[in-house]
């Protein structure tokens, strides 16, 4: 993915219009809850708008926004854990959706992907989403997650191992414990 440099004429509205869908989609897959993704997307853009006038003109806007989104989502996931001790759940997965779900392979696959993602440690989940869905390079992921590039190699390796374990566990119906780091 090409990094977007901060153009001098970008307005807040234009930044929102340009990045609203990828940022929302990223946050949604990190937290797995549509309403919370709405709130966290709002928080992300407001934090960015507040800080933007202080940033240097050479700012890589895209990576910077994803970094804010990642930290905002991590904070929320941490709070969720502290407050509720509830397992990761899709609160906006309404009964109607369940009723309408059809045993078609695509729907099942989509659900398996969602479930496997939600079972992963959030740090690995973020790295995997940035690589596969946002098309980030290792260097861009390192910049976004504030880790070394060698760390990205390890994160993605752990992420893929974890995703594979969870996906197969869902396929066979045998839940697996979550391994690895958590935040």
């Amino acid at each position, binding site marked *: 993915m090409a990094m977007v440099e*901060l*153009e*001098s*004429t*970008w*307005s*807040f*509205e*234009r930044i*929102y*219009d*340009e990045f*609203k*869908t990828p940022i*929302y*989609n990223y946050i*949604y897959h990190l937290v797995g809850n549509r*309403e919370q*993704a*709405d709130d966290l*997307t*709002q928080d992300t853009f*407001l934090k960015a*708008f*507040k800080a*933007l*006038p202080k*940033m*240097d*003109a050479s*700012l890589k806007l895209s990576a910077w926004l994803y970094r804010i989104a990642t930290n905002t989502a991590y904070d929320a996931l941490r709070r969720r854990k502290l407050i509720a001790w509830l397992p990761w759940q899709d609160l906006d997965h309404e*009964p*109607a*959706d369940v*009723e*309408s*779900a*059809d045993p*078609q*392979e*695509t*729907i099942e*696959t*989509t659900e398996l*992907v*969602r479930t496997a993602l939600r079972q992963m440690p959030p740090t690995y989940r973020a790295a*995997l*989403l940035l*690589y*596969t869905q946002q098309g980030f390079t*290792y260097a861009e992921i390192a910049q976004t997650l504030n880790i070394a590039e060698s760390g990205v*190699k390890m994160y*993605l*390796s752990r*992420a*893929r*191992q974890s*995703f*594979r374990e969870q*996906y197969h566990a869902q396929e066979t119906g045998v839940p697996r414990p979550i391994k690895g780091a958590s935040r």
Partner: protein
Amino acid sequence: MTCEWVEEQLSAYHDGMLDAAAADKVRAHLATCTHCAAILADYARFDQLLAQAPRHAPAPELRNRIFTSPAFREIMHGPPAVAAPPARPSAAPKPHVSARLLPQAARVWVPVLVLILLLSGATAVIGKILANRATGPLYAACPAALPAGDRLVYQTNGSLFSDNAQLVCEARTHVTRWQVSPTGQWIAYVDATTNTLRLVRANATGDHEVDTDAGAITTLSWSPDGQTLLIVTAAQPQAARSALTFWRVSPTATAATLLGSAAAPTRLDAAPAWSADGQSVALALTTNDASGSQHGITIYGIQQPVAQATANAPDSATLTLAVPAQALGWTTGSDPTLVWATGTSTAITGLGHAARSTLGALASAVHATLLGATAVAFAPATGQWAVAAPDGSVSQIDATSGQVTPLAQIGPVAGLAWSPDGGTLAVTSNGTLWLVTATGATKAGKIDAGTIPAWSPDSTLIAFISNSGAQIYSSTTGAAHAASAGANGTISGLAWSPDGHTLALWGSAGITLDSPAGTVVATIATLPTGAPQWSAA
């Protein structure tokens, strides 16, 4: 070499991030180890699954939530005053031009900062902002009447412009939401500073406020004849669901008429759908109350009585659905039929229809082979749904008879768009635009992911964005018709003028107006906020 060591390297090997020596070792191991080869195959498969996972977009209301939030106001104007602030230098001389990226404190200190930055030779963003904004559109007083003709309307710096002329008065506006009527005669816009709805003619005259009582305006939807505007207001615009109130107003009126309301937390599941005659509007709603989620479609009559209306709500009727409606439409004709597609945001699971004259003959059809459809589009002109099935096939389904006609086997479909006459279906799949008719499918060319092609009003041409610029194809021959000569930089959107004589392109280099032959007619060196729309004064 052990499987354990190889497993640790497989992810980087898959990404081509191992050095040559390590990659050779892994490659040699994979040639003889089915266990590790299976893991590598899984990684490739899972990467593809994740890349193709349904993309989720925020609710349209989120934009309003952000830009009307107290936090955003504070960013723009500083925290609410609790005591008289100490004396400070006066604000920058042209605050409207420069203020939109800068909080109050920054605005006050901008002249000082700019001086320091310029003196130090630094190239900080604030200085660049100010330098560039000076070349933007000029802010005039209230504009004079503009001449007749098709003109592109765009938003920038919180105001609306028509070509290079300001369309609304600068002093009172910070436009957030706006919509040109389908006939191009009127523009409805929301002024965020007062949270009021205003209407202005496309020739910049008749600007007036519309009274909608209370609530934040979250949705505007014009009837096809441009005679009625539907307004949705929310009691809690910052919530995903809120008590909603629905209004209608004619363009010359100064007060909106109440259509109805939903007291419990409610959300719009799909864009409102107007019948072609502008007499009925359908709203797909999900309401959450103590008994759970209730899904349905509410139909409001504008001047005609509504079938199935009750004494309590004589101008409306509600169809109850088991699952949310994700798309709505109306067939044309003297007795139009309301049609809908139900399911989730990622998979359509059923289609239904009801004639307006009865609304009682509620019929829903479920087509087993099409369950889980990833995209649907309705063509009012022909009454046909286009449906993209999970297996990559594209079919059309008659909205009332339910007859299924297979059209083509394309592959994973990202989007569908019928031509206005319903004769040709544009299908985007794996970065390629296909033109599909009853007689077959033609590959038109590469299209940028996430962009939407634009059909010319007469359905003969389709314009789309590719990595080599804007392309125009003929829908009749499926062959390249022209390429835009004028658009530099990244193009983010395009739209045909109502008469089909001009194609507007906008993106990082501003706005370009092209002829259908791809010749540049005019350029507007302004970066618009959101997508411009055509008016027809």
